[in-house]
């Protein structure tokens, strides 16, 4: 299945892109998608321990199972306000 990944702020800077698309087997989790994104990213990058993830605008656990067509956002520490 195909998952669109968005990267933000410092994470985007490290990865060298704000948008990735990964191909994963059915049943793949958020953690699997992050691993794959790190593998294919234009630059080498490491997910910080404080990373959060959201699928279709809702925060999810890294163990959450993805569905074809999901948009997965990788969210480094937020700092609005």
């Amino acid at each position, binding site marked *: 299945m195909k998952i669109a990944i968005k990267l933000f702020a410092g994470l985007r800077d490290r990865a060298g892109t704000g948008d990735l698309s990964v191909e994963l087997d059915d049943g793949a989790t958020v953690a699997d998608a992050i691993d794959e994104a790190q593998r294919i990213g234009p630059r080498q990058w490491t997910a910080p321990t404080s990373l959060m993830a*959201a699928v279709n605008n809702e925060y999810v656990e890294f163990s959450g199972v993805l569905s074809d067509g999901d948009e997965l956002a990788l969210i480094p520490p*937020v700092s609005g306000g």
Partner: protein
Amino acid sequence: MIIITDQPLVPNTLTNAVRDDTDGAVITFEGVTRNHNDGRGVEYLEYEAYRPMADEKLQELIDEIKDRWEIDKVAVAHRTGRVDIGELSLVIAVSAAHRRPAFEATLHFIDRLKEVVPIWKKEYFEGGEVWIGDPGSEQATA
């Protein structure tokens, strides 16, 4: 009212949006780019938002404080892009019959915003730049 915009914020728009004849208390909070942080001079900030998730999370926070406190209306605006010293990055207006719940709810809203709303702030300081909350992102000015 939820506004995310790259244009200057106008607090009166939000304050007026929450007024109601049933309300005895109206709070307007402004978050402003200040000229210093962590002991060094700040030149300007730059905000990035992940939309529409940021809008949805702001709406959830409005619902959260309305559930928890006796308040009436809430309006919030967040700016994106470059925000110079003295300019507003955030405006929140809250109305209520009585002042105490309005204060508690407004403060809670901002605390939560800084936890869950996908908006990021990059600080351009003298000699470098850094994404706030992500010290590993710091680099000297190119």
